[in-house]
């Protein structure tokens, strides 16, 4: 277990952890891209252009860091609905995300069927997610079991909020993974609120302590410190591949936006509290670190913002113009074995 | 306090003024919302009641038919006083029964074996079978072996087997085989004198009479319902377009007049214009096979067999028996088959097989005297052709006026598959074929 204080003392934390300069720059770029996308999505919703958005602002650092500690193309990913930074880091594009927001036919996640944040992309090993929370935990456990049977060197990485960690599926999944020592990394993104219910009313004890109950280690990290998260996920991955079983990581962060575009968060928290946490936002801190390392400057920042802005603009335009799915496509893919995979006949009347 | 009481001598219950509130002793009828003869469900509003405290709507405490209104609008009635009479089905039936002999109408129906409460309850299968075979269930002497005397499907089948169905049919053949047209062309008799249409006046089945004297109801028989459904589907799904052409059939008329008697003597069936038309149509379809197709969304299925559906009117409905592989028959063969199908239709003996497999419909609308029709396509075919009345008309030939026998052919087409050009050509070919029939044509 890497000790937190050692890391903080070191000047070149990223190199010590095995991250190259390029890695750490890319990590930052992904965080910024996710942040800008997320901000734009909120604007689009308020402007009436998309029906709904669920934001992940404030959680980008932990997600990007975790992604860099995993192997896209090999590991199995079970993100939850705020994980824009994560999915962007493992290969999804802003265009893909915009297509999903606008519910267009070309949306790779679901062809315009699912809401924002409900990811699924087989080529990228992003397993299809749903709205009933925490169902993805047993799925991750099952996929890890399958990977073992298939003798693959992969781990299953699954995220969820602290509210979701109270569902039965979390406990059943952890226990199953613990009994069979499966290579599963469970990362709880503790953003302090489950819609309007604050942590102290949501979780008895601490999420991280539950791991011991299921026979495996739990580690709490600062979600706004990408290096802490990176180290924890990397170590968890090594454990998993070595057959030592699951790890629970509780990444502490803060949900800077309301639960969704339908939530009025001033009903349950103060503006001051939000601002207090905004001051702890990891993205400016990361920029500072990069600058101190001599890897970043104002020019590069401006260039990045410009290119991200362009990418988002183009993606938005593309998605706006893209066609919706045909109405009759509603009937497709209920089952897999008929030609156009219809369930029943042309009208399940 | 009950909301109803019975009055001697009047079947049903009297609905009384309810005790709407503590202190009230009476109410005024503001407005009646039902009339005698209306059927009300329990809790349907029957009238408006006005009291010192409140104006309220009064729900009926019972289900039944309103027979009498006892209190006029604007009149006050005491709590407990009868407002109106509502009679339930059972009570009305009693009353009805009691009345019958008085009206002196009831024909004494001899008890049929198995007579019981279910004797007159006809299941859908029984009704459908009866309609198909022209059986009047209320008249036919069918033994009901089912529960409480019910006539079962098997009973009807047995009845049909035993030949009961035939006996029921009235020999209602109007002058189908009629007058021989005189040799001379200026005959008074209309040129079209035969046809598949039977009686002069189609009889519409009247089964119920009710609803006052300004309207009456006709029951929808299963066959009518089927026709309605098919027409609906055709109109809803197929974009119809329509076109027409005139044909000079003077030579055909002459030919037919010349050979028809001999033909009848030899073959025993009439030689109708329809037979020639079918031959002409078949030839044209062979040249334009797309007329014989079905729209299947991502493909058009062109049928190789030419099975012609003929619209045949009977007393109460239209059937479309099919002449299978009509292209393999000569004119005489077609005439024979037309006659056979017509006979079968009249006798109600058409089978499912007789009516299925049609790929193109021909309709002899001229038999009704029509000169222009817009037929509805027989789903899922692509077109429907009518043969109108043959009418003598003055026409211009080589800049001179002559009197010719002219007939209109009207075509409804599925505009997804067919359009003006192909249909125009098709009709031209039919016209050519028809106009080519003359005294040298061989019927065999």
């Amino acid at each position, binding site marked *: 277990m890497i000790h937190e204080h050692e890391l903080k003392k070191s000047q070149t934390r990223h190199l010590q952890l095995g991250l190259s300069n390029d890695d750490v720059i890319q990590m930052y770029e992904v965080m910024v891209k996710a942040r800008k996308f997320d901000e734009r999505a909120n604007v689009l919703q308020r402007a009436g252009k998309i029906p709904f958005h669920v934001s992940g602002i404030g959680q980008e650092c932990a997600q990007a860091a975790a992604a860099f500690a995993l192997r896209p193309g090999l590991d199995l990913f079970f993100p939850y609905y705020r994980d824009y930074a994560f999915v962007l880091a493992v290969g999804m594009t802003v265009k893909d995300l915009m297509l999903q927001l606008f519910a267009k036919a070309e949306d790779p996640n679901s062809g315009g069927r699912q809401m924002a944040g409900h990811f699924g992309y087989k080529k990228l090993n992003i397993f299809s997610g749903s709205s009933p929370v925490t169902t993805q935990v047993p799925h991750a456990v099952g996929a890890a079991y*399958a990977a073992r049977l298939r003798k693959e060197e992969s781990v299953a990485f699954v995220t969820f909020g602290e509210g979701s960690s109270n569902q039965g599926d979390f406990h059943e999944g952890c226990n199953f993974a613990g009994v069979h020592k499966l290579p599963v990394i469970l990362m709880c993104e503790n953003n302090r609120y489950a819609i309007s219910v604050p942590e102290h009313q949501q979780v008895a004890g601490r999420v991280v302590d539950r791991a011991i109950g299921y026979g495996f280690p739990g580690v709490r990290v600062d979600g706004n410190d990408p290096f802490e998260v990176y180290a924890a996920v990397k170590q968890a991955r090594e454990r998993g591949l070595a057959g030592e079983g699951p790890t629970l990581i509780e990444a502490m962060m803060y949900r800077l936006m309301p639960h969704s575009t339908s939530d009025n968060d001033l009903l349950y928290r103060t503006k001051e509290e939000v601002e207090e946490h905004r001051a702890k936002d990891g993205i400016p801190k990361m920029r500072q670190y990069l600058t101190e390392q001599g890897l970043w400057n104002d020019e590069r920042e401006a260039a990045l913002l410009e290119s991200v802005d362009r990418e988002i603009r183009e993606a938005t335009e593309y998605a706006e113009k893209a066609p919706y799915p045909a109405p009759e496509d509603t009937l497709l893919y209920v*089952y897999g074995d008929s030609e156009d995979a219809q369930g029943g006949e042309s009208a399940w009347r | 306090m009950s909301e109803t009481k019975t009055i001697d001598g009047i079947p049903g219950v009297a609905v009384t003024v309810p005790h709407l509130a503590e202190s009230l002793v009476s109410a005024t009828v503001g407005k009646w919302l039902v009339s005698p003869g209306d059927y009300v469900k329990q809790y349907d509003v029957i009238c408006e009641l006005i009291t010192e405290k409140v104006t309220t709507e009064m729900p009926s405490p019972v289900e039944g038919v309103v027979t009498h209104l006892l209190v006029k609008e604007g009149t006050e009635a005491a709590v407990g006083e009868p407002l109106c009479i509502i009679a339930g089905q059972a009570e009305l039936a009693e009353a009805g029964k009691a009345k019958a002999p008085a009206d002196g109408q009831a024909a004494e129906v001899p008890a049929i074996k198995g007579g019981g409460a279910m004797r007159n309850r006809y299941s859908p299968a029984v009704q459908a079978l009866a309609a198909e075979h022209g059986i009047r269930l209320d008249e036919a002497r069918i033994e009901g072996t089912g529960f409480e005397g019910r006539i079962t499907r098997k009973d009807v089948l047995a009845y049909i087997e035993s030949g009961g169905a035939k006996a029921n049919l009235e020999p209602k053949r109007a002058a189908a085989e009629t007058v021989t047209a005189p040799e001379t062309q200026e005959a008074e008799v209309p040129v079209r004198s035969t046809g598949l249409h039977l009686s002069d006046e189609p009889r519409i089945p009247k089964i119920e009479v009710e609803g006052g004297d300004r309207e009456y109801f006709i029951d929808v028989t299963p066959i009518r319902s089927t026709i309605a459904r098919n027409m609906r589907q055709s109109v809803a799904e197929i974009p119809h377009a329509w076109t027409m052409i005139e044909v000079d059939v003077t030579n055909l008329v002459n030919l037919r007049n010349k050979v028809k008697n001999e033909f009848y003597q030899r073959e025993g069936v009439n030689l109708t214009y329809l037979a020639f038309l079918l031959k002409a149509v078949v030839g044209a379809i062979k040249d334009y096979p797309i007329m014989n197709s079905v729209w299947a969304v991502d493909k058009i299925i062109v049928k190789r067999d030419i099975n012609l559906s003929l619209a045949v009117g009977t007393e109460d409905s239209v059937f479309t028996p099919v002449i299978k592989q009509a292209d393999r028959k000569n004119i005489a063969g077609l005439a024979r088959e037309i006659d056979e199908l017509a006979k079968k239709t009249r006798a109600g003996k058409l089978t499912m097989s007789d009516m299925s497999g049609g790929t193109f419909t021909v309709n002899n609308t001229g038999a009704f005297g029509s000169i222009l029709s817009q037929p509805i396509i027989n789903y899922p075919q692509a077109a429907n052709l009518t043969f109108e009345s043959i009418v003598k008309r003055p026409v211009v030939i080589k800049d001179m006026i002559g009197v010719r026998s002219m007939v209109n052919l009207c075509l409804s087409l599925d505009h997804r598959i067919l359009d003006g050009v192909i249909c125009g050509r098709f009709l031209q070919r039919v016209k050519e074929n028809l106009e080519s029939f003359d005294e040298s044509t061989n019927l065999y």
Partner: protein
Amino acid sequence: MALMKYLEAIRSAMHEEMGRDDRVFVLGEDVGKGGVLNATKGMRDVYGPERVLDTPLAESAIAGVAIGAAMHGMRPIAEIQFADFIFPATNQIISEAAKIRYRSNNDWSCPIVIRAPYGATGGGALYHSQCPESVFFGTPGLKIVAPSTAYDAKGLMLAAIRDPDPVLYFEHKKCYLGVSGEVPDGDYIVPIGKADVKREGKDITVITYGMTVHYALAAAEQLEEEEGISSHVLDLRTLQPLDKEAILAAAKKTGKVLIIHEDNKTGGIGAEVSAIIAEEMLYDLDAPIMRLCGPDVPAVGTSPTTEKFFLPSTDKVKQAMRSLALY
């Protein structure tokens, strides 16, 4: 051909398919030792504990883990010990398994089989006798089968394992040891979605599934011999998707339909079958559609008198068939 019990037929299907296809594995409570009803007896000895996996006591996890494994290329057969205990897994079955293909626009799929022993054997009481098929019925995306014979049991199990979609496989506990039949030696399947006429007849049509198929057949035999009543018996075999064509053909044959199931009447499969018949062939009906089903009470009690009242039997079925024939 070999004569085997219904239970053996199911086991042999799993056993054989595991031998043919490495992706197939079984998971559930106590499956290692053979299962509490012996459905997986002897399989761990051949395939090892990783492919005949004992799970912790957690139905949602059993289903969820199976789903995750299926999404990552395996063909799991999850066993729920008694169908009465399937309900903790309902969220995983209905919200997840049924919708994975549809919600991902055909990118992901979920080829799992969930086996659940259902139906009363006698003495099982409220929580070892239920018929929960109607809870999942009508959820698009799921396939549901309920064989009645050894032949159908094996054929449907092989078909279910090979099916690209989630299949709920309901096995009637009373059929396990009470029903035997000839089963072919080689590979074969019974296609999902096809009903089977188990007896041809002319007077009435009986549509049913599971153990009541056998009551209907016994009653039909007696009615024919004793009273000359000829019954046409259709075994649904697949509950979802229902074989509409077969249902309508069987109903049309006689115009008189009796639907039987052990599951309670209201909202049961019989209601849908009845609606289909009324919707599509009203004019061929010679009698109102009848249903003979379990009463609308939560489940069957343990004492013999109430059990007898609740459960179907050859006699009850025979009575209903006779009244329909005489209608």
